[in-house]
């Protein structure tokens, strides 16, 4: 009878983990360290050996030396999402955490557990004479979903990710990139005639594959259309012609045979690697792809990016995923943690995210690494929107993804997709309570 205990136990494991964590992560002797700059605890989403961790660690060391604040860091890695809840429940929350905006929303903000960081945006970036709000374009944070109190400044971002089509700038076939969806399809046809696949995709990489439909829905219907359709408890919203049109585009794309063969039975990252080796022209994914595919890039591969081209709808929003800091409402020392956020946004420190961690920062005056220059420009020049309009993860798992997989793997038509989503969506909202 050990199995069910196993499952039941992992609820208890949270409690045990909390006890263990409080032993090492807690504030310790509070009164004693209140001297100079105070102190705070920080749980990082990075492991100590990751480049981001090194950049943040260097900043913490400087911050401690300059302000006399004592920072207790735990390099938790991605497990934060499972650990933060029990820590908050046990009233032993760290003072500062970092995570992807989507996870901060679901693990903290959506349940009213994230502190309002508006005051950080009013702080001065030390030594620059500018406020945090002046160096962080507000459109990024404005795109975030609001918490129960209507706040969306529960995050101070330091790294941006977007989704785009990546391609080889050195490929003679791709000298001019398509400006509209129709041009894109035309290019795909040209490539097909040359026996070259247009797009590489791994069939099991659903989240990534969904990016295309997600973008097309925005292009055809404007930002927020998907979110509205998801929230409709009757599912009827999916019957809008605009949404169906976007789904149809994907159906046609699949039927057009533009996707590198074998994708319906491949396991990530097999086809991504094939793309890196030049077997397909484009690959749509998050902006981590250039570094992920780095080791496999064909000789002379020049990573460039282009947005999913606009349709006649003319909408040009760019997908946005932010990584940044948040403070749990129950944190005991939020003030020094907030000071550190403003401190880390200093140009010289934040630059490390670009130069060492090879990612895009939210500051327009810090150039992105060369391979992400296109993405940085895309983010800067277009309105921002959150990927999949922040649809809940379990909605994606239970409703959208099963239907989408059928569509993407060529087993369902647009109408069948819509019917399947509608049906599953009604059940989802019935059982969502």
């Amino acid at each position, binding site marked *: 009878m050990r199995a069910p205990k196993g499952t039941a136990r992992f609820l208890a494991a949270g409690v045990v983990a909390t006890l263990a964590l409080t032993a090492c992560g807690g504030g310790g002797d509070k009164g004693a360290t209140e001297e100079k700059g105070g102190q705070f605890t920080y749980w990082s989403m990075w492991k100590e050996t990751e480049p981001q961790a090194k950049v943040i660690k260097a900043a913490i060391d400087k911050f401690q030396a300059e302000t006399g604040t004592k920072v207790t860091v735990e390099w938790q890695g991605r497990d934060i999402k499972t650990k933060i*809840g029990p820590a908050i429940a046990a009233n032993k929350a760290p003072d500062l955490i970092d995570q992807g905006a989507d996870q901060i929303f679901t693990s903290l903000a959506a349940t009213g557990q994230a502190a309002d960081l508006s005051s950080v945006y009013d702080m001065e970036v030390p030594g620059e004479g500018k406020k945090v709000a002046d160096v962080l374009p507000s459109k990024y944070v404005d795109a975030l979903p609001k918490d129960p109190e209507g706040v969306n400044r529960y995050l101070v971002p330091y790294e941006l990710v977007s989704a785009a089509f990546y391609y080889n700038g050195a490929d003679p076939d791709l000298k001019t990139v398509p400006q509209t969806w129709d041009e894109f399809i035309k290019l795909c046809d040209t490539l097909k005639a040359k026996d070259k696949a247009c797009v590489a995709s791994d069939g099991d990489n659903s989240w990534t594959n969904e990016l295309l439909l997600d973008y097309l829905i925005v292009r055809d219907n404007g930002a927020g259309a998907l979110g509205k359709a998801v929230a409709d408890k009757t599912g009827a919203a999916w019957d809008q012609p605009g949404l169906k049109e976007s789904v149809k585009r994907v159906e046609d794309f699949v039927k057009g045979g533009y996707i590198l063969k074998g994708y319906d039975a491949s396991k990530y990252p097999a086809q991504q690697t094939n793309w890196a080796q030049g077997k397909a022209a484009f690959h749509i994914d998050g902006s981590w792809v250039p570094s992920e595919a780095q080791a496999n890039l064909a000789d002379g591969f020049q990573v460039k990016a282009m947005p999913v081209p606009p349709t006649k709808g003319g909408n040009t929003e760019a997908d946005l995923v932010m990584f940044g800091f948040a403070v749990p409402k129950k944190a005991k020392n939020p003030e020094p943690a907030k000071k550190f956020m403003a401190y880390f946004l200093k140009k010289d420190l934040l630059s490390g995210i670009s130069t060492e961690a090879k990612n895009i920062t939210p500051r327009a005056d810090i150039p992105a690494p060369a391979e992400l220059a296109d993405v940085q420009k895309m983010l800067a020049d277009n309105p921002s929107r959150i990927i999949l309009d922040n649809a809940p993860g379990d*909605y994606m798992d239970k409703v959208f993804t099963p239907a989408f997989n059928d569509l993407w793997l060529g087993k369902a038509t647009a109408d069948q997709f819509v019917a399947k989503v509608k049906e599953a969506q009604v059940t989802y909202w019935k059982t969502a309570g």
Partner: protein
Amino acid sequence: MTATLSVPTRARRARVDPLERQQRRLFWPFVGPALAFYVILFLAPIGYAAYTSLYKWDGMGAMQWKGLGNYEILLNDPAFHTSVLNTLKIMVVGGAATFVISFALTMALREMRGRMFARSVLFFPNLVNALVFGIAAGFIFAPQGPVNQLLRLFGVEAVPKWLSVDNLPAMIIATIVWTSTGYYTTIIMAAVDQIPRYLYEAAELEGANAWQRFRHVTLPMSWDVVTVCAVLWTVSSVKVFEIVMLFGGGSIVANAPVETWTTAMYVYLSAFSATSVPKFGLAAAAAMVSLVMVGVFVVVLRRIMRRDRVVL
């Protein structure tokens, strides 16, 4: 008379007692700590899970009373139905395959030379982390991978799409069977080794063929062990988790597709999905259902498999 009789009885009881009394006195000090551990580490969490399953809880804020609401959700959630069905498939189909293969191997290995070595080889997959299989499957069963190359070599042009979502549940069961066969073969072989050779010799003299020797000697003589193995299998099949997590999406890029979920996966994703608000109440309810499910299965299995012990 009665009075005189009752005195010696009492006296006798008092006289016989010292050892028993000592034993009784030691009963709680000996059993107590183990029992306390058991209660604290096992029963209390189960009780807590049962309690949590009656609430809506994000793991941080206040718990909202929901009564049997979470169980109602499970009743109506197709994802949970799929999870239960997959778990049952692993238990029944995977179990049958594992035991048939284990017995076949036991029979084949019983008289083989170098069987200790063969046994180690068979046991080996059980030592390897499921992670390895999850990753290896991506290469081995890729559209242009070694398996399909081999099939093409034999002229099979319509190679199967091994890793497509439709085939994943079957692939998962096959992997589980492959990794556990060695484990159960080892246990069953240990039992079969204990069967005296003369029983087989006698059976052969009586003209029994291989199947009859298996049916009338091996099976009855190792029945107790087989029963234990069946219970172990049932219990472990409800825990299947990491292999599901690794097979589809690899947990790096996407959650495992709902078509492959097991109850353990359902519990995990309800509580710890990266991008939805944690539903600890629902997770606990699903865990309670699995607990009841495995409990019922084990009891029924024990009933069905109960036999009088063969004593030599």
